[in-house]
């Protein structure tokens, strides 16, 4: 009665205003990071130089800004959103707080498939490798789930199965690169996770795919809210858990597969981001999913900018920065006595 407000959605939400504000703050942070990402690099620019680089085709800065740094920034935003959202979807689908497309072998599976397509089949077009990335991601996701014991998988078993799949996939990627250093020199940065090749990637396609799969993923929020109450309760509420999981895996495959094909296998973004997000938004997936996409962009762009600042005038690959930042967080989660239920 009195305790319920009339605001939408679900009743009694004093935190709704806060969560809307939070979204605005995230968008603001993304804008600032985007400017930094365009301005910083081996040749740092001031704001006015960035502006002329954006607007004046005759300026010195124009090619650097429009051909290198803008694509790099756009790819970082898109890939970060993809990985953050894929992690949130995976955690919600499995009710497993340790789920992450990086940790569960999805990104490595995609990477192994990409390397295969380049080395054995001589694919050089991005679109050709993208199909392989999807297949690799899907096979790794389903394989990991089955190895861990399907519906009876515990968080620990799933994480172990993921570690095994990741290790095997990574060994495969490394082995092929050692076999053929010359042709795969160009994949050296890609294989640790990097945005440096952004200008070689068909950005419209990548952003379009990630956007479409993000919309699809966010639309799963309501059934995922039902699934959070257990498979039995979800069935009672009219959700078919098998259909929902299959749909979710399809979205994760496109999100993680596209991000990996474009930037290489990047771990921990999908793990860390949803945890931080949930601490702020609470367990409602209607908020967790869009927040995770935006916060994923922030995480990825911040890691990339940081990598460029730390190793100037060279740079640290974004995948390495993400791993260094995310590793301790993963250990903290694993060592907590009670892992949060989702």
């Amino acid at each position, binding site marked *: 009665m009195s305790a319920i407000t009339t605001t939408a959605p679900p009743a009694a939400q004093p935190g709704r205003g806060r969560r809307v504000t939070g979204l605005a703050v995230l968008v603001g942070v993304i804008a600032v990071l985007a400017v930094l990402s365009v301005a910083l690099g081996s040749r740092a620019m001031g704001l006015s130089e960035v502006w002329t680089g954006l607007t004046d085709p005759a300026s010195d800065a124009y090619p650097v800004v429009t051909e290198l740094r803008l694509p790099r920034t756009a790819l970082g935003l898109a890939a970060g959103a993809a990985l953050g959202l894929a992690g949130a979807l995976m955690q919600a689908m499995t*009710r497993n707080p340790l789920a992450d497309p990086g940790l569960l072998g999805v990104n490595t599976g995609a990477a192994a498939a990409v390397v295969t397509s380049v080395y054995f089949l001589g694919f050089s077009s991005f679109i050709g490798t993208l199909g392989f990335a999807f297949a690799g991601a899907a096979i790794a996701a389903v394989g990991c789930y089955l190895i861990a014991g399907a519906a009876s998988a515990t968080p620990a078993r799933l994480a172990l199965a993921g570690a095994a799949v990741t290790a095997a996939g990574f060994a495969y990627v490394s082995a092929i690169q050692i076999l053929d250093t010359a042709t795969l020199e160009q994949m050296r940065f890609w294989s640790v996770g990097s945005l440096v090749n952004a200008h070689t990637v068909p950005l419209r396609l990548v952003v379009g795919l990630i956007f479409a799969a993000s919309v699809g993923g966010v639309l799963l929020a309501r059934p995922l809210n039902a699934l959070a109450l257990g498979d039995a309760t979800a069935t009672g509420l009219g959700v078919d858990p098998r259909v929902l999981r299959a749909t979710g895996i399809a979205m994760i495959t496109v999100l993680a597969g596209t991000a990996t094909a474009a930037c290489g296998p990047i771990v921990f973004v999908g793990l860390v981001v949803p945890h931080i997000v949930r601490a702020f938004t609470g367990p409602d997936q209607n908020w967790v999913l869009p927040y995770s996409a935006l916060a994923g962009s922030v995480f990825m762009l911040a890691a990339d900018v940081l990598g460029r600042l730390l190793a100037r005038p060279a740079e640290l690959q974004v995948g390495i920065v993400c791993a260094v930042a995310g590793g301790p967080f993963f250990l903290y989660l694993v060592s907590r006595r009670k892992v949060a239920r989702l």
Partner: protein
Amino acid sequence: MTGPSYSSASVAEGPNRGPAGATEGAPSPLFAEDATLGYGRVAISEGLTVEVPEGEFTVIIGPNACGKSTLLKALARMLKPAAGRVVLDGKDIHSQPTRAVARRLGLLPQSPIAPDGITVADLVARGRYPHQGILKQWSAEDERVVGEAMEATDVTDLASRGVDELSGGQRQRVWIAMVLAQQTPLLLLDEPTTYLDITHQMEVLDLCGKLHRSGRTLVAVLHDLNQAARYATHLIAMRDGAVVAEGAPAEIVTAEAVEKVFDLPCRIIEDPETATPLVIPRA
């Protein structure tokens, strides 16, 4: 309804409104017909025909592993019969869209999961899922129904509390509120009193009685025979996957029936509080 027990293996004739020869009265909204139920290749029940009488508070009892939870799962479409069928409103339950079923039949499973940090109001609101759509956002109607569900279960004052800070009894009332928010005429409850102390067991059963009197058809699996005899208006006693006896508690709870179902020698006396049968195990 006459004898203390009779065979459940009645062969169904009536195609749609209730299997033949079970109970008189109103047609059953939900029944299993000649159903073979089990997990994998292990059959728990074969040729089971059971109907849920309209407007009654049905309680399924029986010893451990007698198939009572399996029957409830089948009635709730969580388990598809290997043979035979479960019929809801005249149609095979598995031929109907699961969301449509969820507007007719609510289910509270044995161990539902409360996500960390969820509030009571948010949890109850999730019961509105089958009434929502991608474009149909949270409405004033949803708001009203959630409010009524919390009122009916007496959890309105807890609305903004976290579910994890509640007592076992309060939590169970919140879950029942969640199922009530589904607005279904049929409610299925799988062992709603397990893990609760006696006071909270009574509290939950009183609530079930109240929901029954307000016009809903209830089906619950219970462990305690005396609680079942006190609250149920229709009892189904099972053993080894078959129905051994069914009917009003006053008619079917006899010393012979209890011994047959539970292997428990006992006397039956009248409950001094409710005049329902009370089972006293022999010393």
